[in-house]
């Protein structure tokens, strides 16, 4: 870990502005890492929030931020040379299977934690990525792998949602009597992840999804991020089908900053303020 304890102040080495909302910050720093893990990003005087690693090499890592609220807007406005605090990495990360029969399903910025995973999976994976419009497709030229795109407006790829393509592919494999997926990985809005999970369940396909909750400590103590009896920052953020089945709060309940349990939709509204 680069900063298990107090945040380590490091310079933003480079910045890639993908579009009006997505920006990647790169740091030239060695960090232990498994795909799916996250760091806490501290902007002194502002706040500290969790971000998944979207790029990783032994000497450099990157996080990709969607400008949404007060904090993320400040984060994407950083310039190279600016100092920020990093704690982590935290969390469990994805369990990587070696099978050629895997699917990766990304929704919007959910691509961030999945990107470093994709490069570790068998090249024959089925890689599906959805976004609002063509412009919001992250990492356009990053992957050698084939990527199946969906957009809400049809400006690129399939007009519709990622589960359309995933369902079709699962159906295809069933019908053709081909080897079914051994694992489906998903990250994106929780409603999307729930749809993926439900789809997989109905075909008895195991999946792993990466959840998001409000976080404080990042290391399993404060309880801010609990989801049912799971602690998202340490038990997760990645959960598998067996865990999701028993997770009453999945796609249903989340805690606000006060600790108040609210329906997930209210949580999203709160985050929108």
């Amino acid at each position, binding site marked *: 870990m680069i900063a*298990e*304890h*107090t*945040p380590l*102040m490091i310079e933003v080495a480079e910045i890639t502005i993908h579009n009006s909302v997505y920006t990647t910050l790169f740091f030239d720093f060695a960090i232990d890492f498994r795909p799916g893990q996250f760091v*806490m990003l*501290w902007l*002194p*005087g502002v*706040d*500290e*929030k969790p971000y998944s690693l979207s790029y990783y090499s032994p000497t450099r890592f990157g996080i990709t931020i969607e400008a949404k609220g007060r904090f993320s807007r400040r984060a994407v406005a950083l310039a190279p040379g600016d*100092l920020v*605090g990093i*704690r982590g990495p935290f969390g469990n990360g994805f369990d990587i299977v070696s099978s050629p029969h895997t699917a990766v399903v990304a929704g919007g910025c959910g691509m961030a934690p999945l990107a470093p995973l994709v490069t570790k999976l068998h090249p024959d994976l089925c890689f599906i990525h959805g976004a609002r419009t063509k412009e919001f497709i992250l990492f356009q030229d990053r992957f050698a792998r084939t990527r199946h795109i969906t957009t809400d407006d049809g400006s690129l790829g399939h007009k519709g949602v990622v589960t359309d393509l995933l369902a079709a592919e699962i159906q295809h494999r069933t019908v053709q009597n081909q080897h079914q997926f051994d694992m489906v990985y998903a990250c994106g809005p929780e409603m999307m992840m729930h749809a993926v999970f439900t789809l997989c369940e109905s075909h008895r396909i195991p999946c792993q999804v990466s959840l998001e909750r409000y*976080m*404080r*400590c990042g*290391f*399993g*103590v*404060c*309880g*801010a991020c*609990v989801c*049912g*009896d*799971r*602690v998202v920052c*340490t038990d997760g953020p990645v959960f598998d089908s067996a865990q999701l089945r028993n997770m*009453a*709060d999945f796609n249903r*309940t989340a*805690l*606000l*900053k*006060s*600790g*108040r*349990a609210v329906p997930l939709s209210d949580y999203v509204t709160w985050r929108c303020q």
Partner: protein
Amino acid sequence: MESVTFLGKQLKNPLVLASGILGNNAGILERVHRAGCGLVTMKSIGPGPRDGHNNPTVIDLGFGMINAVGLPTPGYDHMDTEWQALSGRTFPLNASIYGGSLEEFVQVARFVSEQGPEFIEINISCPNSDRHGMLFGVDEKAAFAVTNAVKRVIAVPLIAKLTPAAPDIGKIARACEDAGADAICAINTAGPGMIIDIEAQMPVLAFKKGGLSGPMIKPVAVRCVYDIYRAVSIPIIGLGGVTTGEDAVEMFMAGATLVGMGSAVRYRGIEVFDQVNRELADWLTDHHVTRDEIIGAAHDRRHTP
């Protein structure tokens, strides 16, 4: 560890989950219980919705933690789903509460008591907020007053949780006992402290100052429990820096009847409860003693039972 009777209630073992650690919902409280915790404590519940401070709020220093979470709470009357989930529980529950005034303490206590927790713990010791709680814990008269007022409106045993910032913690404990407290819980976080990031040139915690917990405060916690044991005859929940069975033994010897853990979850995971139970049982077996026999053993003269 074997089960113990505490204030008339049966606990499967003498370990307690500290307030503010994980205890944010029924699911996790039950899981901690399943993981070997005899008595789980809820995150302190306040009079009205409160977000707490911005991050950073909790930082691990390696030999302990510093935190200024800022008493976030949904407010006692915005927790319907939680109270409902907890009403069907299969484990004993300690409900921690706080208020900014005596009236608020009473208001929260009365409502919470009706939810039927096994115990109510009054947090008269939290240092993370400008307005809340702390005053009561450093002043004998205030400690007496709030304990007394809460005691009158609740139907379950009352635990007073104290701060090591009190100039004479024994006296505060005595005041709580005199006011009707059924047990003392000690300690809340120590300090307060501050860590400054020298590159950012500012305090790391958004609230600037924070309470210290974990291994580095164990000597302070042991001293407090020792002092309280000499001052009162009600039982003590000893916590502060406990992470191993041997630490628990030390707390018992200082005078604790039950032993709590919070920060230990950072260092050994939720499994720490099962682990400490096992370590404790092994130690007692190896030494041919019972837990009862070592309570207060570090004192020249012990309480006569």
